[in-house]
């Protein structure tokens, strides 16, 4: 079967903040650049980001990139690569000012400079006092970023392929990346995108969990494509959780609710946070509250028919305070939890929010994998940026507002590396391998021909339940080992998923089945990586190994999908220009 081929200098998969920042760099250099996206670019998940983007501009209070770097290293619980962290924090002011020049409507101070708001974890003088470092465009920072970058790209002649789903990475015999296959949803046809360089910016994969703040499109497609193409995934055991997502829906209930006096209760009506954090109680740090909540559930004091959530009680505040000081919360609770918080408590559960791991890259955005003695050999022609990539700046835990920064800094850096690579090393296209589209076509034809198979929704639910039950905020050896077994059973079921609708045009069922094949790769990687890490670090809290163990475990996990094996590589302890920041106990 012949598959039509389209040729570009550069192909970018993903039209969120990271993909569009990279595309701009390429198009403005005059290279023929395509951006593929499952949805219209400005509806990428970046649109959900409200809090802001960090940069040590020092517009409100004195600030320095070195302090930002310290906070990021500490936040990462010393798993972040210090060269990449220095690179990002140093570039941050320039990156934000560049966005301003592109026309992004940041909130301003009276003197016309960009306003900066406080955000957890950002401090002056290496942890001394909080600092205002987050730049925002009202509560629509992500939206403003997407619109700004989209306009610039249109002007620079980036060619958008909207409602196209990339299916698989194409590597040639040498292992170099020469393109991707993609499905045009409108026709159901598969195409080959032949490129001198490919960048993945496919975003997160939060939908592997039953409780997730991520939109439905966050299915880890870039990671699934990597696993199938023999590229390992880095640090997949590290996922950030938000303590109060609405049970069963995932929608976030802001921290402000507890700030105003909302309290958490278990099935016995006990205010359990008094036991875990006698001083701070319900206002203890995010990860601590989340772990305490899960402990209650694990010990059988969860609420509801499945005893799997706790309650956030507000009614004692009275209707006036709820309406005045917490606008929107009542509507959210009614709409997504089916309860009126003026009368009843809201069921809540720690909810997956952000993926720290991903496709292994360096700070130049190049995908790097072990080869012989070199733990980080470049995969020629392959780049990644944004939430799907692991540079690694977030290490074991991400600092709020550092993700939007990651998108623009590493999006640009990857774009620059690609321009250099194409100009200096890849004057023309490497030939496509003969079987370039074979894997993708086989996947689709299996879906079309499967009989007596499994239902996509049922298998996806089984996967989400397993990951939620076995690898959420609070982990232990027994649970993880059980999870590894269970998720591999679910993976077997994914091989037999079946769709009823076999039509070609805009077949959402087919897309969801293909997405599930990506999600399961991420889910298996998560459990196997988590099961192996016998320590507690950042978001990986292990009941049987409660201490961080730098001696043994200050290293990055690499997961290979073909034989589900793990290897490890060292954390970069050499920043680019400053001194190494040695590990300390992470106390607050």
């Amino acid at each position: 079967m012949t598959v039509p081929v389209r040729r570009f200098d550069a192909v970018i998969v993903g039209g969120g903040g990271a993909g569009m920042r990279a595309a701009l760099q390429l198009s403005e250099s005059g290279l023929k650049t395509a951006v593929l996206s499952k949805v219209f670019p400005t509806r990428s998940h970046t649109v959900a980001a409200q809090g802001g983007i960090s940069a040590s501009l020092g517009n409100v209070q004195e600030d320095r990139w070195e302090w930002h770097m310290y906070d990021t290293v500490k936040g990462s619980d010393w798993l972040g690569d210090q060269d990449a962290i220095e690179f990002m924090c140093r570039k941050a002011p320039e990156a934000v000012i560049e966005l301003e020049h592109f026309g992004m409507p940041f909130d301003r101070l009276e003197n016309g400079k960009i306003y900066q708001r406080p955000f957890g974890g950002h401090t002056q003088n290496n942890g001394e006092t909080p600092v205002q470092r987050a730049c925002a465009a009202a509560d629509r920072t992500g939206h403003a970023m997407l619109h700004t970058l989209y306009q610039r790209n249109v002007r620079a002649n980036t060619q958008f392929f909207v409602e196209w789903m990339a299916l698989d990475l194409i590597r040639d015999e040498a292992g170099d990346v020469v393109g991707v296959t993609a499905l045009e949803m409108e026709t159901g046809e598969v195409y080959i995108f032949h490129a001198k360089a490919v960048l993945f910016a496919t975003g997160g994969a939060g939908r592997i969990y039953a409780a997730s703040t991520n939109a439905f499109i966050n299915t880890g497609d870039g990671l699934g494509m990597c696993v199938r193409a023999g590229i390992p995934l880095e640090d997949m055991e590290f996922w950030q959780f938000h303590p109060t997502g609405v049970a069963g829906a995932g929608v976030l209930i802001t921290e402000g609710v507890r700030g105003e006096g909302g309290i958490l209760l278990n099935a016995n009506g006990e205010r359990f946070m008094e036991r875990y954090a006698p001083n701070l109680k319900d206002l203890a740090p995010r990860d601590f509250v989340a772990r305490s909540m899960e402990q209650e559930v694990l010990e059988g004091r969860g609420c509801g028919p499945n005893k799997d959530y706790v309650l956030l009680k507000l009614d004692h505040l009275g209707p006036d305070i709820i309406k005045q000081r917490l606008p929107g919360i009542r509507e959210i609770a009614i709409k997504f939890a089916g309860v009126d918080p003026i009368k009843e408590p809201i069921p809540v559960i720690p909810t997956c929010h952000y993926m720290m791991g991903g496709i292994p890259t360096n700070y130049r955005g190049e995908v790097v994998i072990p080869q012989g003695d070199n733990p980080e050999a470049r995969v020629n022609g392959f780049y990644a940026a944004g939430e799907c990539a692991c540079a690694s700046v977030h290490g074991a835990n991400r600092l709020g507002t550092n993700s939007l920064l990651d998108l623009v800094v590493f999006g640009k850096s990857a774009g620059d590396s690609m321009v250099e690579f194409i100009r200096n090393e890849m004057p023309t296209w490497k030939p496509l391998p003969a079987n370039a589209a074979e894997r993708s076509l086989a996947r689709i034809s299996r879906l079309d021909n499967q009989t007596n198979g499994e239902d996509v929704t049922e298998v996806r639910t089984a996967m989400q339940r397993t990951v939620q039950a076995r690898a959420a905020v609070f982990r232990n050896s027994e649970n993880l080992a059980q999870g590894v077994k269970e998720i591999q059973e679910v993976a077997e079921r994914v091989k037999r998923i079946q769709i009823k609708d076999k039509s070609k045009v805009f077949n959402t069922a087919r897309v969801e089945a293909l997405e599930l094949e990506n999600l399961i790769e991420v889910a298996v990687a998560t459990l196997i990586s988590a099961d192996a890490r016998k320590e507690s670090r950042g978001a990986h809290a292990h009941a049987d190994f409660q201490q961080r163990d730098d001696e043994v475990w200050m290293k990055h996990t690499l997961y290979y999908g073909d034989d589900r094996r793990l290897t490890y590589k060292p954390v970069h302890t050499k920043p680019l220009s400053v001194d190494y920041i040695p590990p300390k106990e992470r106390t607050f």
Partner: protein
Amino acid sequence: MTDIDPVEIKRIRWRSRRGLLELDIVLERFLANGFDQLTTDELAAYRKCLELGDNDFLDYVNGKAEVDDPELAHIIGILRAV
């Protein structure tokens, strides 16, 4: 809705996948329950909603913002009740 091109219906279903989880949840419920009963005019209005930016769309659906476009008011009313 019988006179509408079935391909267009499928396209609209895909475009109901959004960048915000809140909208995904509301629209998923709506697609399962209510969408198939829309009149031709309501469907046209729904299609117009899908052109909105996600934040504006959600503000309408949540009742945080008033709907000033008379063409959208009715369909947003339906979505608010989902």
